[in-house]
């Protein structure tokens, strides 16, 4: 054991022996996708089997009392082992609480449910997609709007204001390191622990919620390049409603990202040095049986503006739409199967239509 590990373990053991309450949780998911047509686009695979990925997460929550808790969640997937959450939380009043450390950035509702055990489809909605998206590479759409999990270092205040018996207005406001990159965002680099520039970013989410419904808005903005000169801004709206066996969710997000005017190789003359990406999804989960949920989803992503140098996109307006039918079947409360069919169509690009089938096995405790 390294000295650091010894210190950590003994800290944990001593908190446990002082009566702190420890909750363990974890999940593992194995996902396989089959794409129709010639030369299907590939995705990164930690198994080296094209189309197959896995994700693993283990979490420890220690409630030490007096409203103080600590959460550490490590996860592994296409980007190696990462710290998805690592924060201390202090509950002061219902309307004012503090969390500091490595956080999940409060942008969009899906980011809350990014763990594979917490969403019903095998793939993430396109505004939050990463490598599981077709044509995800930098030379094409360069991922979604705010790839989930959105993880960052910082501090946030959050709380809930009661408006009557059944309605509340919840908020989170965060000061974070921000996303990183040069000439468009680079999500792998955004997760590095040290900031690449001197401008912190801000993020916020506000949700008006009743027992079976909610409406919300969220956003984040910051400088992303090393010289603090290129900016991004993301804004989104969200809605949720549950009507008996049907759960409806919809979100729309957009990101404005500055382009580097000094870069060369753009396909045409750069006039507006920024581009806009808009993404959305609408999803209905119909619980047919205690163990079986049918999911219908329509989502999309559109990019307006100058393609990046060397991009396969050649027009100033290119998009992807997807229609999904999925089944979420639980064998019991710890094992679930997900399967779907997805129809991918592209506009403003030469990418052909694709049929995609996915299956996933998800374990969680």
């Amino acid at each position, binding site marked *: 054991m390294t000295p650091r590990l010894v210190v950590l373990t003994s800290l944990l053991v001593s908190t446990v022996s002082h009566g702190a309450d420890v909750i363990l*949780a974890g999940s593992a998911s194995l996902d396989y996708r089959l794409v129709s047509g010639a030369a299907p686009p590939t995705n990164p695979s930690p198994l080296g089997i094209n189309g197959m990925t896995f994700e693993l997460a283990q979490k420890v929550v220690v*409630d030490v009392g007096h409203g103080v808790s600590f959460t550490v969640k490590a996860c592994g997937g296409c980007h190696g082992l990462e710290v998805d959450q690592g924060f201390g939380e202090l509950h002061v009043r*219902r309307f004012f609480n503090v969390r500091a450390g490595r956080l999940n950035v409060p942008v969009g509702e899906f980011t809350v449910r990014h763990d594979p055990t917490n969403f019903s489809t095998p793939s993430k909605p396109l505004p939050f997609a990463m490598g599981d998206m077709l044509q995800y590479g930098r030379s094409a759409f360069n991922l979604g709007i705010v790839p989930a999990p959105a993880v960052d270092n910082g501090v946030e205040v959050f709380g809930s204001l009661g408006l009557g018996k059944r309605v509340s207005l919840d908020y989170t406001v965060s000061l974070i390191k921000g996303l990183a990159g040069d000439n468009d965002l680079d999500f792998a680099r955004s997760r590095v622990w040290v900031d690449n520039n001197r401008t912190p970013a801000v993020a916020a989410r506000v949700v008006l919620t009743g027992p079976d419904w909610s409406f919300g808005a969220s956003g984040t903005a910051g400088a992303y390049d090393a010289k603090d000169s290129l900016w991004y801004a993301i804004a989104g709206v969200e809605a949720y409603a549950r009507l008996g066996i049907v759960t409806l969710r919809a979100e729309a997000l957009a990101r404005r990202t500055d382009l580097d005017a000094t870069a060369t190789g753009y396909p045409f003359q750069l006039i507006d040095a920024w581009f806009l990406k808009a993404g959305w999804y609408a999803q209905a989960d119909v619980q047919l049986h205690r163990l079986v949920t049918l999911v219908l989803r329509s989502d999309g992503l559109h990019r307006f503006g100058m393609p990046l140098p060397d991009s396969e996109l050649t027009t100033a307006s290119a998009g992807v739409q997807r229609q999904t039918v999925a089944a979420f079947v639980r064998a019991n409360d710890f094992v679930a199967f997900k399967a779907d069919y997805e129809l991918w169509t592209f506009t403003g690009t030469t990418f052909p239509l694709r049929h995609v089938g996915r299956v996933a096995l998800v374990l969680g405790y």
Partner: protein
Amino acid sequence: MLALLVTLSLAAPPSTRLLYEQKCLYCHSEEVSERVRLTEPQWRRLIEQMRQRAPVLITRGDVFTLSRYMVNGLKLVPAQKPVVAVTKPDSLGADLRLADAGVPRDVPLPTPIDPLPEEPNADELALAEEGFALMQTRCSRCHTLGRVYGKLDTLERSLNVIERMSLKTGSGITEDDLRVLEAYLRSQFERPLQSAAEPVGRATSPR
């Protein structure tokens, strides 16, 4: 005769069937929960042992509803009872085998010296119903309930979790909801059993 048994079990109110599926098939399949034949008081003791493993899932009232269902709905009673005696002769043998201690298990069969749980009063039943239903709806918004019940195994931990969850942005869990949930949790954990100082089954809980 099998047809009669099937008809009988189908004749049980569907809501009890659902209750059974929701609560007894949470940790294991029917193969486990239907592998023993017991009298009603024995079922009550066994289900009380199951309740100790997940007190937020199986309420005190459920112990009674479900033990009646095991006896009257599923007819899982000892072989000498007429209803099982009329099944095929070889299944009689199987029933006897299942009823004795030869079946591999890590839960000791309840013995007559185990305390018999006390039936909750109407107020307690109403609170349990409200609390359980509230938990079902509020706690399934961002994740399935699967990971919830198994983790809420002490009062303190459960209270910490519901407070933490209620403060997640957009949880829809108001202070009023928290009060009901807290009262529900207290009613399921705190009321002492008739004579069991030490919760039954704890020692054998898989942890």
